[in-house]
Structures are given as structure tokens and as C-alpha cells.
């Protein structure tokens, strides 16, 4: 059993939750999301995010709009859909349960 694998598994579980949480406060484009995720050391390489965003979007949790950018190509600004918000609420409950579980078990 490799420690790297276990870490990756744990990170992956919370990654979607974190992306949705970031978007709870308003729309953002991928680079902004990446900045926050990198600060939290949740992702190492940026490529990780794009397939994930597309999948969440196709699942109906996210929607996006285009906005022109002065410094580069037009940006996709993502935001939560109604389904996304509900999905996030459920995840929040689960997360709180998990935190409780961890704090109880690790005492």
C-alpha cells in the first residue's frame, strides 16, 4: 500500500466538493478556481481541473458563460446551477458528518 495512492484517493473525494464550494460565493473562471485549489494543495497540475469541470457541467451541476479577456482567449465563467446548489448542500452535510467521525475516532 502506497501512501501516495491513499493521499490521492482522499484528495479526489473532496475535490468536487471544494470546486462547488468555491463557486458558492459566485462565478469564477478556471484559473481562479485553480489558484484557490493550489493554495489548498488540493491539486498539483492544472490539467486535472478541466475534465472535472466539463463533467460537472455535463451533469448539470454547473453552467458557464463566455467573457472576453484583455490578456488572452475568452474565458469560461462557471457558476452553480440550482441542482449544483442542492448537491453542494448535501455534500456539506456529509462533510460535517465525516469531520465529526474523524474527530471522534481520532480522540
Amino acid at each position, binding site marked *: 500500500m502506497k501512501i501516495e495512492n491513499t493521499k*490521492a484517493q482522499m*484528495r*479526489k473525494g473532496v475535490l468536487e466538493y471544494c470546486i462547488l464550494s468555491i463557486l458558492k460565493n459566485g462565478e469564477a473562471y*478556471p*484559473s481562479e478556481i485553480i489558484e484557490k485549489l493550489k493554495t489548498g494543495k488540493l*491539486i*498539483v*497540475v*492544472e*490539467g*486535472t481541473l*478541466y*475534465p*472535472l*469541470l*466539463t*463533467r460537472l457541467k*455535463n451533469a448539470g451541476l454547473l453552467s458557464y458563460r463566455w467573457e472576453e*479577456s484583455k*490578456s*488572452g*482567449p*475568452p*474565458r*469560461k465563467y462557471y457558476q452553480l446551477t440550482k441542482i449544483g446548489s442542492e448537491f453542494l448542500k448535501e455534500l456539506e452535510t456529509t462533510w460535517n458528518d465525516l469531520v465529526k467521525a474523524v474527530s471522534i475516532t481520532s480522540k
Partner: protein
Amino acid sequence: MNQTVTINISGIVFHIDVDAYEALKKYLNKIKSYFKNSEESEEIMMDIEARIAELFSEKITSENQVIQAKDVAEVIVIMGKPEQYVDEDEAQDEHPKEDDSSSKKSSSSSSKKIFRDPDDRMIGGVSSGLAAYFGVQSLWLRLFFVVAFFVGFGFLLYIVLWMVMPEAKTASDKLKMRGEAVNIDNIGKTFKDEADKMSENFRKNGKHYGRKAEATIESLFNFLGQLLTGLFKVLGKVFGVVFLLVGTFLLVGLLGMLIGSETIFSITTDGVFSITSQEFFNLIFISEDQFHIAIIGVAIAIGLPIIMLIYAGANLLFKVKTYAGVSIGLFVLWVIGVFMCAMIGIRMGAELSEYEMVTIEEVVTNDANDFYISASQSENPGEGILEGKYSSISLDKDSIYMNDVRLSIYKSKTDSMEIKLVKDANGKSRKDAANHAKMIRFNYSVLDSTITFSNYFSFPKENKIRGQEVEVNLYLPVGKSIYLDQSLKHIIHNVANVTDTWDPHMLGKKWVMLEEGLSCLDCDEIEGVTTLQLDSIRKYVPEIRTEK
């Protein structure tokens, strides 16, 4: 000095070093191969490309305008290799493992393909796409299309290419569009790759052969493989070009014929056509409907195969996309076209099914013993549309003129010269045919002992061409003679005579009607006559010689 290329990623143009470009190309192809099975792959690719463009933009400063290999390497570190993050992603379980075969796959899929270039376009990006494919400046292709447009086929060729060439949507498409320039080096490389692949296959399948045999056969296969692939590729391109050009010209010709306003064809072997299709069909068809059905039918029945030819040519040249179902649709359409032609054919058959003739007789009241027979030498009035040796057709405002006049000479049963005109025509009923025959106008003149026949007849345009003919039968009493003028050469037809002289050889000579039949009077030598006949002839020409 470094060579740079210009690339376009997500709508932004970058100058990039050649080695950096190669690295980027490899990287993008690799990502793409990981997402190959995913429906979302295109969208993901576009997102990733957009991010790469953003990162590149940050690297460009006023001192450093060119993306270098280290920039690409940095971007790859930031973005991560696909195996780094696809592993983190459950949905992409079934990605190919990084091994020899997948890298080979991606390198072969990175070979050059033809696309329309959406970033450098005047109309549809066809010219710039082709230019990128052939590695020339797009200006030349544009010039070609402008010239071709005025020559006539450019417009169609452009539309066809526009339809068959896909648009380069992602940067990896665009990289493929440019690909490697086609030159001697990489043609050789292609052959070598093919040969390597073959020898590899051989090695896999033929492990149990002796090594020596393997080496010999391998080199043989290498050679054959190179030869064949090379040959087929070249042949394919040659056929592609031929198909494309021939098809385009045929299509332009056909459309020009059917809807153009100018001369449709000119065939010069025996006759010359110079008529618009509209006029031509008007001569045959009764109604506008028939005319339109015929035009559309012909356009579909002949045009579709031509279009398929062009398509096949384009396919051989550029490996364009194919649409399933389209070919079935086209085939059905073609059958409909053929059916339309057949329907018109049957209708025309019905139009011509009956035959009728009208006969007019005149007794020439002239006691002369010698007659001079000639034909008018005038050209058909109006504008000629078909000029043949024996049959010409011409038109003016309201009449059609034709040359199907036939002159025959028979023995008269009475003592006087008779002229019998038989006018015949076809029609959908006997009455209709008789009407057509009656409307035929034909002139001849009897002036003293000179009879002159017109060399054409005419009928009103609304009668249409319905197999109209005029037969002129001349009944010559026994004992009277005629001189056949050279001008009769187009109308004289199967005149029986005792010496079996061929019609054209009868002209320019004097002939007498005997009980036995028509005999030559002033022929220098005559053959095949009986003594009795000779005696009869001597009554008129005592000095005639016969071979003894």
C-alpha cells in the same frame, strides 16, 4: 538562428520555435489520445488549449516575442502530463497505457490532414487550408480560385471543397493542418515507417522461422512494402487530381448546357451543333413541363455521377469526411432522375407512335423530249442548328427547315412526265401525323423543260420535329431523256438503272428511259447491257462504244 513557426491557439497567434512547436504538438496529441473515447474530449481539449494560450500570453514580453522550448516545458509542468491527472479521474479508466503502441498511434495520427483554416479566411478558409496542406502561401491558392472563378469552374470547386473539408476547430487540428511540410525527407520517412511497421508485424508473426530466413524475407518485404505503399499513394493522388479536374469540367459543361444561355455543344465530326438547350428542347417537347422534367432529369441522371466523381477525387486527395446515409440518398435521387428521363422517353415514344403520309401528284404538261433536272443550291434559311452531310436543321422565327428530301426516278405508266410528292411525318395519332405531314411546305418549279427541286422543306415551329420527310418521285415516260445536274447530289436516292450505276455517279449525265429501265446516254463506256438494250440505246446515240 532559430526557425520559428506561427501557430494559433484559441484564436491567439503565437510565434514559436520549431523544437518548442514539436514538443507542444506531441503534448497535445498525447492528451488527446487519453481522452479519445470520451464524448467530452473536444470541449476538454478546447479548455486546455485556452489555458495554454493564457499561459503563453503571460510569457510574451516586449523583449521576448517567441515561445521557446523552455516555455513549453514550463507550461507542461503547470498543466501536468495526462497520466498524472487522468489517473486521478475514475471516469477515464479505460485510457490507453503509455507504451510503445500508443505513442506510435499518436505519432501516426499527428500526420498531416486537410482542414479549413478558420483564422485566415476570406470566405470559408478553403484556400488557406489548402495552402497549409501543400505548404505554399495562401495567396497563390486564392489567386488560383479567383482565376478559376472567371474561367467558370472555380465557384463550384470552391463550394464542393468547402463542404468536404472539415474546419480546424482545436489547436491540435490546426497543428495537424500544418503538419510537416511535404518534402523529400519525410516522404522517405513515411516509407521507412511503413516498412518498420511491416517488419515488426513480420517479426511478431514469424518468430518460429529461422533467423536467416527472417532477415532475407524481412528485407524483401521491406522493399515490397515501400514500393507498394509508395506506388499506391502516388497513384491515388494522380487519380484524385484527374477525377477532380475531369469531374469539375464535366459538371460545368453539363450545367452550362442545361441552363447556360450560350452555345451548348459543337460537335465537328459530321455536324455542328450551335444552339441553346432551351431552343433544342423546344424543337422536340410540346409543353414547358416536359421540357423542365427533361432538364431536371438529365441534370440529376448525369450530374450526380459527375458529383460522385468529384467527391471520389477529393477523397483520394485529402481523405475528406464521409457522411453515412448520404450515398443512399444520392442513389435514390439518381434513380428518380433516371426515372424522369425514362418517363420523358416514353412520352416521346407515344408522340412518335403513328405514321401518316400525304401525296400530291402533278402531271408536267410539256412535250419536250429532254428534261433538265436540278436542285436549288441555296442554304437553308434561318439559323442553322445542325449541319450534317445529308441532314441539316435550321430555324427562323416561326419555321423549322430540314434537308430530308429524297428524289427517286421511276418509269411512267403514261405518256407524260409526272411528279409525285410524298410528305410523311409521325404523330401521337394518325390524324396528328397526317396534320404534321400536311403542314410540310416543299417547292419545285417547272420552267419549260427545266425542273428545279428545292433542297429543303419547312414546317411551322409548333409542329415540332416529328420525323418529317419529303419524297420526290419523278415518273419518266419511255423514250424521254433527262439530264441529272450535279446539284442533285444531296437529294438523289436509290435510282434504279439498267447499269446499276451508283447514284452519285449518275450525276452530270444524260439518261433515257427505256422499257428495260433508265439507261445512260452519254457515258463513255457502259457495261453490263444486253445487245437488245444496246440496240435501243443506239437509236439515241449511234456513236456509243462498248467494250468488246
